[in-house]
């Protein structure tokens, strides 16, 4: 047996290796294999001499990565026969060639893109509020799929916080200038100038209307206004002569005998006096007729201490008060 170490030194007989089972092991040819040994000759062999099962040497066997195909050995024509088998056909789908208007569906077939409908644009419009306006930018007339309108409005009262920070607003009071130009005409507020004319005479009264039995002159313009009474001075004294207070008309009420005299001219704003005739003076004093006369609308009441025994005649006068 010849022994050669890893450095290539050759030894003659006399060096022997036996395994755990006591059987000799061959260590010629650069030493025994390392790694697991199996029926498929797995392991590392320093100087293997391997041939194909047909006896052809595998000396020229190369490591050839398929991913990079460095020598171009893998060609489409070389692969075609293998890609046509059933298994390959079920795994690798060839990409079909369609037209520019087609796409490949999930099942690998071609389909034509559907026609995309033409969109008619709609407008975005707005309705302004009196004090709030909105400007639409861009191309609002063709900006939407469906027409839409915005209507602006104003709700509630403007909050103080919206105006208190405005210097112009806050300065308004001090910004108004008062002038007194002219002596007639209406007061004006133009811009920030309030003008009140220096009126004289009527103090700005433009029309005076006269009431009943009153005349006013002049009725317009300027100057001194004169008011005159016309007619009865606003009321008429009515004298009713030869009136008779019947003795049977007196009624005892609350300790006094009363007589009610009716006349349409008597109102709560009138005063009624009774003047007896000379012939009735005795009866008036006998019955103790009082000077007090109470009035109400359409009538008045006379009073006496005792019931008159005869009729009392006299004159009744109605005074406006």
């Amino acid at each position, binding site marked *: 047996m010849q*022994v050669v*170490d*890893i*450095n290539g*030194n050759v*030894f*003659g*007989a*006399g*060096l*022997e*290796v*036996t*395994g*755990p089972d006591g059987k000799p*092991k061959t*260590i010629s040819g650069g*030493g*025994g294999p*390392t790694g697991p040994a199996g029926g498929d000759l797995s392991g590392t062999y320093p100087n293997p001499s391997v041939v194909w099962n047909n006896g052809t040497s595998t000396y020229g066997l190369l490591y050839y990565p398929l991913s990079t195909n460095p020598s171009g050995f893998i060609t489409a024509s070389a692969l075609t026969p293998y890609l046509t088998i059933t298994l390959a056909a079920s795994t690798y789908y060839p990409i079909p060639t369609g037209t520019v208007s087609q796409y490949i569906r999930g099942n690998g077939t071609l389909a034509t893109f559907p026609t995309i409908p033409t969109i008619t644009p709609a407008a975005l419009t707005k309705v302004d509020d009196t004090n709030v306006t909105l400007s639409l930018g861009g191309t609002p007339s063709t900006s939407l799929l469906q027409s839409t309108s915005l209507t602006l409005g104003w709700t509630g009262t403007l909050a103080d916080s919206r105006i208190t920070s405005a210097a112009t607003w806050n300065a308004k009071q001090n910004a108004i200038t008062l002038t007194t130009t002219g002596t007639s005409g209406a007061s004006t507020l133009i811009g920030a100038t309030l003008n009140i004319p220096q009126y004289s005479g009527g103090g700005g009264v433009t029309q005076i209307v006269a009431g009943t039995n009153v005349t006013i002159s002049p009725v317009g313009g300027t100057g001194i206004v004169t008011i005159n009474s016309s007619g009865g001075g606003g009321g008429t004294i009515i004298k009713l002569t030869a009136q008779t207070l019947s003795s049977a008309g007196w009624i005892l009420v609350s300790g006094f005998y009363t007589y009610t005299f009716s006349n349409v001219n008597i109102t709560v704003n009138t005063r009624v006096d009774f003047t007896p005739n000379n012939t009735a003076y005795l009866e008036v004093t006998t019955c103790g007729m009082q000077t007090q006369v109470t009035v109400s609308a359409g009538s008045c009441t006379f009073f006496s201490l005792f019931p008159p025994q005869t009729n009392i005649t006299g004159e009744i006068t109605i005074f406006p008060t």
Partner: protein
Amino acid sequence: MAEFSNQGELSTTGTVLLTGGLSTIALDKLSILRFNNPLAYNVQLYKYEALSTTTTLIYDLTLSAGDTLTDNLTYALNNGDQIIAYSNILGTSYYTYGITY
């Protein structure tokens, strides 16, 4: 002349198995070497020559677990020459047999 046999455990830093002595009769000789380790191990055998103060690797073997290496070659040593064995792991036992003069 005297025969000898030794045994022991190789050191990973080297174990001198025999050193040649001064003799006018014959050279000292190491005739049998045996090594064993239950684990996979490596054995290196060197010969040191005193005259040239050089060390020569005789063999370097890688062995499987439980392998026994038997070396029946005869190494003759001049005065001061040495046979040195190394193992890469502890636990490698050895046995030697030889003759000194």
